[in-house]
């Protein structure tokens, strides 16, 4: 099982590789090369930081075109993590309106500060549907690690699982072979490791 982490220079790759190794996936590489991405069995789109900067880099490396082909046409399974999950959406209002990859019909906006501290940092519960592949074997309202100031909302049907922080937002989506998690499974102890295992084995 060949897992490739999409390389556009952003995201804590070390932790993701460590987690994949721990659950027994040792064939992990990091690349922005079209052929390498195309030959992967699974893709992971990581990310921490600025949406706009990420999209600029992704476009410069032609990764938007590559991923459109590999993910949308070839239907390669992909898991977006944190910013990666947001990038696959339509757009984000971070800094100014920036277009995303558009794989998922949802938009990213800032938490309205109101009565909660921003960024949303720490472990929080996600209301999961154990029928979904991502959450197979996980039930109840498991905790995952969040750290973000912007979040995805959507009124479309994304097989989303919600987290409530100053209002409900999309903690994860799963549309066939395209999945995204706002939280960091590689930083979420046992729950996160199980989710990663599920992505590798079931999507």
């Amino acid at each position, binding site marked *: 099982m060949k897992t490739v982490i999409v390389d556009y220079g952003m995201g*804590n790759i*070390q932790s993701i590789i*460590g987690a994949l190794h721990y659950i027994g996936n040792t064939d992990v590489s990091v690349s922005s090369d079209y052929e390498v991405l195309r030959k992967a069995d699974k893709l992971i789109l990581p990310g921490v930081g*600025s949406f706009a900067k990420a999209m600029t880099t992704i476009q410069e490396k032609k990764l938007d075109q590559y991923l459109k082909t590999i993910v949308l046409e070839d239907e390669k399974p992909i898991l977006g993590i944190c910013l990666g999950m947001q990038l696959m959406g339509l757009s984000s209002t971070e800094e100014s309106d920036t277009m995303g990859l558009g794989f998922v019909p949802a938009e990213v906006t800032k938490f309205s500060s109101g009565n909660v*501290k921003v960024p949303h940092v*720490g472990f929080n519960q996600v209301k999961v549907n154990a029928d979904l592949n991502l959450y197979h074997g996980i039930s109840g309202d498991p905790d995952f690690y969040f*750290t973000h*100031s912007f979040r995805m909302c959507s009124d479309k049907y994304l097989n989303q699982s919600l987290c409530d922080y100053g209002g409900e937002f999309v903690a994860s989506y799963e549309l066939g072979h395209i999945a995204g998690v706002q939280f960091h499974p*590689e930083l979420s*102890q046992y729950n996160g490791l199980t989710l990663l295992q599920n992505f590798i084995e079931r999507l």
Partner: protein
Amino acid sequence: MQSRNFRLQKVGDVAWLEKNYQFQKIAFSLDELIVLNASRDAKSMVEFSQAVSQLMQDVFIPIAAGGGIRAMEDAELLFKSGADKIVLNSLLFNDVQLVEKLVKQYGSQSIVASVDYKKTNGINEVFIEDGVTKLDLSLEDYIQHVENLNVGEVYLNSIDQDGTGFGYDLETINQIKKAIKAPLIIAGGAGNERHLLDGLNIDKVSAVATANLFNFMGNALPNARKDIIQSGVSLAPWKLMQEEVSC
């Protein structure tokens, strides 16, 4: 390093930590780790980043690393070594421009602002540079300054309580908490699980930190976590993946 009022006693290296605390097992009862380079000599960022990499082997919670970050390259190295966040202290005062650059580059959620203070004549004063240099700013004003830098979290540490095991400086925390909009981590003085619980029960405190591992040897941390959850505080209910720690 064992610290009391910022006087340091060397306790052991990373391998010692692993041997005496079966650290990877302990990590399963924690939420996050903060690793600070407290060495007093010219802080060797390369060695420190290697220690961070080693520490994070098989640890699947966020790690914040800091201590002596003075330049962009220091931050880059720590992030590349596996840190999820960096902790800034003296830099918040000494080089505001660099702090702003770091926040812009890595996002505010990647930056923890560490603030050390001590009470003199009833007034809280802020110290930087390993608690040596006193700033001419009140704690309140300094907190405002730090907040304006758009950091992700504030790590507030009482030098007076540090290492004493007598409990957090609840008086100051309760006074200052309204001024802190960012998530607040309190530190300095935790000696037992009661202290952790008292800290977590303060509204507007997001997290409690302890560095005094001697107060929490063996099963103490997992037990503390269990008791805190039982008393109603909403912590993630981790179950230990491996067998119970025995020490």
